[in-house]
C-alpha cells in the first residue's frame, strides 16, 4: 500500500503542468463551492434571524381564528396574568405576550395603516428588533407606558417628530372605534424598511385599556436556543395551553422564511454537485491522459507480476491525492476570503431589491462546518467514483499488447 501511494505521488508530478492546471481548477471549484455557500447561507441566516426576532419568535400560541382574522376579536382564551405561570419553567430561553391589532395612525398631516403592538418592554428588551437602535428618544419603559415607538420611515411619512402627538384608531371587540392620542417617545430603525413602516409599539396595558380588553392578549411568543430546532419549544408551548389554542412554529407563521431555509439548503447541494460535475470532465480527462501515456509502463508492471487491483489502486490514489491537495487549497482560500470580509459585504446599491427578498443590505458571510463537510465529501466521493472508470481500464490491459504499444 505504501509503495502504491509513493508511486501515485511521484506519477502525479511527472507532468507537473497538467497537474498544476487540474489543481488550479479543483481549487477554484472548491473555493467557489464554499464561498458561494457561505454567502447564501449568510443571507438566509440573517434573514431568518432578523425576521423571527422581530415578530414571530420561534413559536407562538394564538387563538385558532387569529391567523385569518388578526384582530382584537380573537384573543387568547387565557388571561394574560395566568400565562406567566404556565410558561415559567417550560424550558424556553425567553418568552413574552403581546396584544397585536391593526390600526390607523394619523399625524396632523398624514394617515397610514399599521400594526399596533402592545408589548411588555422589559420582557422584549432582549429580542424585539434585536438591533433596536432607538435612534432618537427612548425605548418603552413599562407595560403601562403611554408613549409609542414608531419606525424611522413611518415618522418621515407622517411628517412628524419625536415628542409630537399622533392619533391611533382601532376597533374594540364590539367594533366600536377606539381612538386616543399618544406621544411619540422614540423612533426605531430596522434592517428592513418595511418593518419601520408597519410596526408601532406601545405599552401592553395601555393598549388593553384603550381597546377595553383588560388582561387579554392575542399571542404568547417563545424562543428556544436554536431556530433550526423548534420542535421541542413548540411542544412544550402546546403543553402549556390546551387544545383551544393553536401553536405554530415560525416556519408555519412565515411560510416564506420557512421555505427559504429548505430551498437554500437544497440549493447548496445542487450548487456543489454542479460545480463538481463541471470539474469532473477535467478530472477524468487528466486521468485518461495519465493512463494513456503510461500504457507501456503499466503493461510492464503487469508483466512483472503486479496485480491488476494494485494498478487500479494506484490510479485511484493518484486521483484522490490530486483532489485532496485541491480541496486543501480550496478550503484555505475560501476560509481566507470569508475572513477578508469580517463585517460582511456591503451591497446597499441593491438595498431595495434585497428588502424585497426580505434581506438586509449588508451580506454577512456564514461559513458553516456542515457546508464545508458537504462540499468536501461530495468532491471526495464523486471524485472517487469518477476515477474508477479510467483506473479500471488501466488494470484490464493485456500486458503483452500494452508493452508493445508505440506512441
Amino acid at each position: 500500500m505504501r509503495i502504491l501511494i509513493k508511486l501515485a505521488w511521484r506519477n502525479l508530478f511527472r507532468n507537473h503542468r497538467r497537474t498544476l492546471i487540474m489543481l488550479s481548477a479543483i481549487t477554484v471549484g472548491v473555493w467557489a463551492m464554499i464561498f458561494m455557500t457561505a454567502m447564501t447561507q449568510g443571507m438566509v441566516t440573517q434573514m431568518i434571524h432578523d425576521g423571527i426576532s422581530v415578530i414571530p419568535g420561534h413559536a407562538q400560541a394564538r387563538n385558532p381564528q387569529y391567523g385569518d382574522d388578526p384582530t382584537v376579536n380573537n384573543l387568547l382564551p387565557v388571561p394574560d396574568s395566568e400565562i406567566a405561570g404556565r410558561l415559567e419553567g417550560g424550558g424556553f430561553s425567553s418568552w413574552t405576550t403581546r396584544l397585536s391589532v391593526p390600526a390607523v395612525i394619523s399625524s396632523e398631516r398624514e394617515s397610514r395603516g399599521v400594526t399596533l403592538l402592545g408589548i411588555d418592554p422589559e420582557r422584549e428588551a432582549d429580542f424585539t428588533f434585536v438591533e433596536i437602535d432607538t435612534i432618537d428618544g427612548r425605548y418603552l419603559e413599562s407595560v403601562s407606558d403611554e408613549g409609542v415607538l414608531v419606525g424611522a420611515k413611518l415618522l418621515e411619512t407622517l411628517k412628524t417628530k419625536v415628542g409630537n402627538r399622533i392619533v391611533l384608531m382601532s376597533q374594540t371587540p364590539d367594533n366600536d372605534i377606539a381612538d386616543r392620542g399618544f406621544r411619540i417617545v422614540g423612533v426605531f430603525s430596522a434592517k428592513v424598511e418595511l418593518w419601520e413602516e408597519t410596526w408601532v409599539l406601545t405599552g401592553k396595558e395601555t393598549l388593553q385599556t384603550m381597546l377595553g380588553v383588560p388582561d387579554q392578549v392575542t399571542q404568547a411568543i417563545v424562543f428556544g436556543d436554536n431556530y433550526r430546532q423548534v420542535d421541542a419549544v413548540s411542544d412544550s408551548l402546546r403543553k402549556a395551553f390546551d387544545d383551544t389554542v393553536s401553536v405554530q412554529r415560525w416556519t408555519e407563521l412565515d411560510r416564506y422564511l420557512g421555505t427559504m431555509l429548505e430551498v437554500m439548503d437544497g440549493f447548496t447541494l445542487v450548487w456543489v454537485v454542479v460545480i463538481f460535475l463541471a470539474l469532473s470532465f477535467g478530472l477524468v480527462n487528466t486521468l485518461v491522459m495519465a493512463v494513456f501515456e503510461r500504457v507501456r509502463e503499466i503493461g510492464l508492471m503487469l508483466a512483472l507480476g503486479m496485480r491488476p487491483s494494485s494498478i487500479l489502486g494506484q490510479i485511484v490514489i493518484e486521483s484522490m491525492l490530486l483532489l485532496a491537495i485541491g480541496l486543501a487549497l480550496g478550503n484555505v482560500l475560501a476560509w481566507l476570503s470569508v475572513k477578508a470580509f469580517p463585517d460582511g459585504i456591503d451591497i446597499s446599491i441593491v438595498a431595495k431589491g434585497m428588502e424585497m427578498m426580505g434581506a438586509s443590505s449588508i451580506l454577512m458571510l456564514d461559513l458553516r462546518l456542515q457546508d464545508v463537510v458537504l462540499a468536501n465529501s461530495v468532491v471526495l466521493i464523486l471524485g472517487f467514483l469518477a476515477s474508477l472508470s479510467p483506473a479500471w481500464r488501466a488494470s484490464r490491459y493485456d500486458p503483452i499488447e500494452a508493452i508493445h504499444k508505440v506512441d
Partner: protein
Amino acid sequence: MEITLRLAWRNLWRQPRRTWLTIGAMVFSNVLLVFMISLQFSVYDLMINNSLRAFSGHMQVQAPGYIDDGSMRQTVAEIVPLASELRSDFPDVDIAARATGFVLASSEQRSYGIAVYGVEPAFEPGASSIPGLVTDGRFVESGDEVIIGVVLARNLRVSVGDELTMLGSGRDGSFAAAVLTIVGIFDSGIPDLDRSIAEIPLATFQDVFYMRGSGHHIAINAPSIDAVADYQQRIGAVLPDDLELHDWTALQPGLKQAITADIGSSFFAYAILVILVAFSVLNTGLMSVLERTREFGILMALGIAPGRLGRLVLLETALMGVIGILLGAFLGGLLTGYFGATGFVMPGMEEMAVRFNLPARLYPGISVATLFAGPIVVFLVSILATLYPAFRLNRLQPVEAMRAA
C-alpha cells in the same frame, strides 16, 4: 486554410476520448447556461409585467417630491383634464388618473387600516389589471361604490352589497368620512393588494377628501416595456414644468434592484462554471501540444511557420467549441423547450413566487439571445484559454523538438 482545417479536424480524433471529454465539459456548461439564462430572463419579464400591470403602471405623472413622501398634499391639480389631454396626444398609450388616501375601513364587525384609491372607472381597466380581476360583482362605475380585495373582504367579513364606512383625513387635514356600497371583490393573487386596498370612483374620492379637482398620480402604460424610455421622453416633453414623470425603475426601485442582485449572484456562478471549462480546455490544449512536440519539430523543420502551427492548435479548440455551441444550444434548447411546455416547478417555489408576484409554475421562453449568449461566451473563453499553448509553439526549436522523447 483548407488543409489546416482538415489537419485540425483529424488531430481532434486522434484522441477521441479526450476530445469528447473536453466537448462534454463545454456542452455540460452550455446546457446549464442556456436553461438557467432562459429561465432567469423569463422570470424577470414576468416579475416586471405582473408587478407593473397590477397597479403601478410603467410610468406615473406626479407632483414633485410625491415619490419620496407620498403626502396627501402633494397633488396634481386638475388631474382629470390633464389625463384626457395626454390621452388625446398619445392615443396608443393607456392613461388613468388616480388619487390616494389612507383610511380606517369598517364593516359591521371589523375595522382595518387600508389604502383607498380614487380611479377613473372608464380608463382604469387599461392601466391596471385589477378591474379585470373582479371575481365577484363588478368594477366601480360612479357614486358611492367601492371594490376591495378578496383578503380584505374576508377580514372585514363582508360581501358584495354590504356597506363599508371609511374614516380618514382629507387634503386639508380635516375629517373625511364616507359610507360606500361594495359592488365588487377582486382577487389579484398579490397578497399586498388583496389585503390592503380599495378602489372608488375618482369623483367620489375628490368629494370625500376635499381634493378640489386634484389627484395624486396619472398611471401610464406604454404598449410594451421596451417602449417606456421613448414614451417617457415624449410625454415628459408635453407635461407642465411643475410635474414629474417617473418610470417603473423609480416607482418600484425594489423590483429593479432585486433583478440586479439576482443577475449579480447568478453571473458569479456562471463565471465560475465558465472558468472551470476554461481549465479543462487549457489542459487539453497543453497536452495535445506537448505530446506532439516531435511532430511539430518536424513540421517546422519542413518550413512551416510557428504561427501557422499556433493557428492549427487554436483551430482545434475552435472546432471543439463549435461542436460545443451546437450541441449545447440544441440540448439546452430541448431542455428549455420541454419545461417551456410543461412548466418548471421547484420545491418551495410557491412561497417564493408569491413574494415576487409570480405564478407557482414557470414557463421559460427561448430567444436567440438566451440560446446562444452562454455558449458563445464559453467558446470565446475556450479560445482564450488555448492562446497559452498556441503561443508556446513560438518558442519551439525544431532540432530540439525533433529529439524530444
